[in-house]
């Protein structure tokens, strides 16, 4: 399997998009750290940019890569290679290159300027989000019949997780504000990897004090060791389940 991933990685490096993504992340993080005199502020701005950019790029890149390597997949299918192996090597190649890009583009500046609990949380959450959204993108592209539908589907999912979902939560909170909703919001946040990542990092920052009673509850839960395990576990589930669904669909597909 590593053999195949090697060729996938080679192909990805050749088309230079990942290199551009690395430079983009690096320039943004460096300039934020240089502009703000307070590293905490820079981290907050960086957080807001990353929560939009990382899922978006991961999804779009993974989807386009899948359709572009359709020929490669076809070629491998006529060889003694199992379908599971082919798809998983594609995933490994894409995920590995995107995580590396993130580690270089954001990881290095963060380690350099602000190596503390918040910094580590951000690096962890960024890598986790990359894995999760690459996996969701694979699921979307295996499910969709053609390129346009696949990319459209991926974009819709991104909109849902980044924008629509928060709107829905606010709607629920307002409609049921007479009831105690703290536990519910805790559960709801686990249903969206972007929110989970945001809460996970925010709680390491001072700003969490501004979040009021819910913030205190979050701090109590996510701040604890079991809360961290919970976050890691849910993130892992978010990465594994869509990939599993993608493999299942791919095994039955006519190519």
């Amino acid at each position: 399997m590593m053999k195949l991933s090697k060729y996938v990685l080679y192909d990805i490096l050749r088309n230079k998009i990942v290199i551009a993504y690395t430079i983009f992340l690096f320039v943004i993080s460096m300039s934020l750290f240089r502009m703000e005199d307070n590293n905490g502020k820079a981290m907050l701005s960086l957080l807001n940019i990353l929560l939009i950019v990382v899922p978006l790029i991961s999804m779009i890149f993974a989807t386009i890569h899948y359709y572009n390597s359709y020929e490669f997949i076809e070629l491998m299918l006529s060889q003694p290679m199992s379908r599971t192996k082919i798809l998983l090597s594609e995933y490994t190649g894409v995920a590995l290159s995107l995580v590396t890009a993130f580690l270089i583009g954001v990881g290095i500046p963060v380690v350099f300027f602000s190596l503390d609990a918040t910094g580590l949380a951000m690096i962890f959450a960024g890598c986790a989000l990359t894995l999760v959204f690459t996996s969701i993108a694979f699921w979307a592209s295996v499910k969709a019949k053609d390129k346009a539908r696949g990319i459209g589907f991926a974009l819709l999912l991104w909109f849902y997780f980044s924008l629509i979902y928060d709107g829905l939560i606010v709607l629920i909170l307002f409609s049921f504000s007479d009831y105690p909703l703290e536990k519910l919001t805790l559960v709801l946040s686990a249903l969206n990897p972007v929110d989970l990542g945001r809460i996970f990092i925010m709680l390491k920052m001072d700003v969490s004090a501004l979040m009021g009673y819910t913030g205190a509850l979050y701090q109590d839960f996510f701040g604890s060791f079991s809360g961290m395990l919970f976050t890691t576990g849910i993130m892992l589930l978010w990465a594994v389940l869509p990939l599993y669904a993608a493999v299942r669909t791919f095994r039955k597909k006519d190519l």
Partner: protein
Amino acid sequence: MIRIEHINKRFKRLNALVDVSAQFEKGQVVSLIGPNGSGKTTLIKCILGMVKSTSGKIFVDGQLINGDPAYREKIGYMPQIGRYPDNMKIGQLFSMMKNIRNIEDDGLDNDLIVKFNLVSLFDKPMRTLSGGTRQKVSAALAFYFHSDILILDEPTAGLDPLSSEILKEKIIAEKKRNKLILITSHILSELDELTTNVMYLQEGRVQFFKGIEALREETGELKLGKAVAQIMNAGVNTNWVDDLFHAKTEMP
């Protein structure tokens, strides 16, 4: 070597294959012929496991195809339209395939690579190649591993006459080595010198599957095109062979 038992394939509304059964043996060169959309490529893709049949069984070398990809080591496949990763160079493509199949250099068949002079193109990325050169690469790859079964989907389409002749010679050479070769083609005159058995598909059904000698005897025709045309005229209505037949007779 390949046994097909009651294969059915449905794409949403279309019945691509209807109850196809056949047995192909070593040393045979089987020509799969039939009009466009008659299910030739679908049948080939079923054997390769790229298309999953709705019902029925396929055995390769006595082994049922059910997800274990190991049987494909015995198959060399040349697709109708060879599509390869754009950024990969020809040389890399060959070394990758070698690497994936885990075969040492002395177990490889470089014959076609040499005859098509592909070595001089080893540095060229696949995306810059013409259709014909792509076909040459596909052909060289299909024969590369000395596979016992060769599946060639319209092998000479797009090749210049000289290359097409080289490929035909290669097919004849492999036939002598007692391999099973499956060919689809629309150029029946080309199949004349190669084929030992003919399978005619139409609308997903096998119209007939006969040895070439039996076919010639039955129809009294030496040329495959004419023999097929005669059989089809006698039985089912086939405009495609009619057209082809007229086109052939009109030529001086």
